[in-house]
């Protein structure tokens, strides 16, 4: 048992120091009927590294990776290149094996990187302040909805039809428990502006997404104006952070709260998690923000340093009056984000965004050239929706036989909503011209 340093002799000597005969004495508070004898049945005993690695490798081997064959799936999780430096940094013992920085004198590494992360997210979204991250984009979205209800003291939330349906579902779940009404607009590939007409003087916030789940980019400024006229907040969602290198950021479209998924920067696909939720808002609403915040201060010798701050909002102080029950941030995923963003800088991010956009434009051009294909997203960044003649699920299965994961079928995200012939495809800097040509060719053969 390689993780246990105590030897049988140590245990004996320690029991003697304590004055106990055996460890069983420590468990005498356990009701007798609940005490177990021996080990739990049906579970194997300990194994060496080699055996465990073989077991896990066998499971891993049953999955098809995004790097095998041609890969075009997006919709909230994106295949990007992560620089080798990033993975090295997050595996530094001092970052990997430390706790929440509650003792700032010996946690300046984590704290300074969080301060830099908050500054990067605020700059990226063109908002005043950002927190130290949420679990992921979807939970950040749900928290934004309840924060808007706290700020406006209203109990109605309106969700656009282009909001990622998982984000919408997570938000509904959180709101339902608190008796907040959720109005869901019908799915729409290019219909974010419908939020304008859905906002009234009972609405706490409208939640729109750009680029939305169908890849469509929209200037949400008219929605913000309509919301503000009614005293409601505008929550602007994005799932692809790389887009912010090119498209108008939430802060410049009048957003009061910007939330997004940061996975694209520094974090691998990981089958959906762990990811990193971004959350930014205006200075005015700063104290209503959920989650951890890192702030600047000085130490006893007058040196600049950083601490977790405004924690009276949080559960460990406020308990039943806290702004949220959240107690974790995305920690190491946040570090991966900030380290990758530091490598990129404005120059690298802009270039990365352009490469993504051009790959998607080329893909759209190539697919448009296939008979029967219709591109549905009028404006897009690195993914778009298109219509195929026939059933998208069947088409994707046939494409897969030709080694092409052709995207995500809209009917998986919006079952029963009449979108059986719609595919959402994504291209990134990882997509080659060869991949694009292969996709178009395969689609031609399938249709």
């Amino acid at each position: 048992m390689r993780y246990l340093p105590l030897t049988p002799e140590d245990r004996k000597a320690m029991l003697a120091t304590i004055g106990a005969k055996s460890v069983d004495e420590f468990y005498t508070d356990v009701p007798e009927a609940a005490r177990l004898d021996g080990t739990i049945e049906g579970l194997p005993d300990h194994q060496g590294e080699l055996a465990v690695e073989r077991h896990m490798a066998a499971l891993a081997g049953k999955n098809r990776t995004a790097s095998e064959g041609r890969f075009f799936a997006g919709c909230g999780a994106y295949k990007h290149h992560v620089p080798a430096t990033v993975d090295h940094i997050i595996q530094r013992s001092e970052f990997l094996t430390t706790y929440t920085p509650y003792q700032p004198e010996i946690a300046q590494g984590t704290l300074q990187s969080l301060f830099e992360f908050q500054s990067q997210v605020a700059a990226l979204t063109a908002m005043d302040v950002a927190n130290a991250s949420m679990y992921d984009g979807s939970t950040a979205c749900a928290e934004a909805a309840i924060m808007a209800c706290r700020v406006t003291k209203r109990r109605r939330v309106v969700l656009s039809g282009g909001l990622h349906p998982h984000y919408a579902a997570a938000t509904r779940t959180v709101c339902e428990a608190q008796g907040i009404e959720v109005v869901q607009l019908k799915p729409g590939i290019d219909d974010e502006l419908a939020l304008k007409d859905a906002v009234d003087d009972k609405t706490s916030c409208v939640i729109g997404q750009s680029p939305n789940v169908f890849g469509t980019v929209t200037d949400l400024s008219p929605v913000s104006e309509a919301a503000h006229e009614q005293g409601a907040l505008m929550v602007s969602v994005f799932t692809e952070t790389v887009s912010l290198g090119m498209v108008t950021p939430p802060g410049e479209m009048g957003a009061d709260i910007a939330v997004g998924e940061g996975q694209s920067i520094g974090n691998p696909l990981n089958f959906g998690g762990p990811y990193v939720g971004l959350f930014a808002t205006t200075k005015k609403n700063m104290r209503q923000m959920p989650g951890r915040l890192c702030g600047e201060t000085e130490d006893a010798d007058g040196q600049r340093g950083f601490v977790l701050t405004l924690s009276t909002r949080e559960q460990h102080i406020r308990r039943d009056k806290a702004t949220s029950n959240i107690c974790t941030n995305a920690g190491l995923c946040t570090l991966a984000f900030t380290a990758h963003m530091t490598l990129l800088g404005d120059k690298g991010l802009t270039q990365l965004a352009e490469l993504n956009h051009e790959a998607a434009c080329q893909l759209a051009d190539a697919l448009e050239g296939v008979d029967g294909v219709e591109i549905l997203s009028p404006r897009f960044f690195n993914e778009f929706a298109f219509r195929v003649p026939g059933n998208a699920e069947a088409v994707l299965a046939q494409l897969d036989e030709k080694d092409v994961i052709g995207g995500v079928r809209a009917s998986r995200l919006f079952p029963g909503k009449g979108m059986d012939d719609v595919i959402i495809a994504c291209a990134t800097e990882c997509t080659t011209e060869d991949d694009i040509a292969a996709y178009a060719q395969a689609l031609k053969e399938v249709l």
Partner: protein
Amino acid sequence: MTEQFTQQVTFYTEDHEWVTVHGDMATVGITKYAAEQLGDVVFVETPEVGKTVKKGDDLAVVESVKAASDVYAPMSGEVVDTNGELADAPEKVNEHPESEGWFCVIKFSDGAETEGLMDKDAYFEFCKGEA
């Protein structure tokens, strides 16, 4: 009822608040003892002007780095003024808790609600019991 306080009088509550009544207005804050117990005050959430409160309702929140405490309305009425300076200078609550560190003014509806509140001496004795 409302015109009984022709002279300014200060009362104290068991929740460590002070309330100075004059005419039909009551100015509310927290006591020196409370400010000392809380430690460095970093934020005060004052009520909105126009809010109507009943005696005992949540009126304000005072925060130190490690604690958030609710301040209750010592009298029923309407909030007619709040101390805007606390937003930028919450330290006034520590420096001058019973003057410049006031929280808000309530236009009270029932002067009889001061019955049962303590005067300075009684509050002093009360604090001795708390310590």
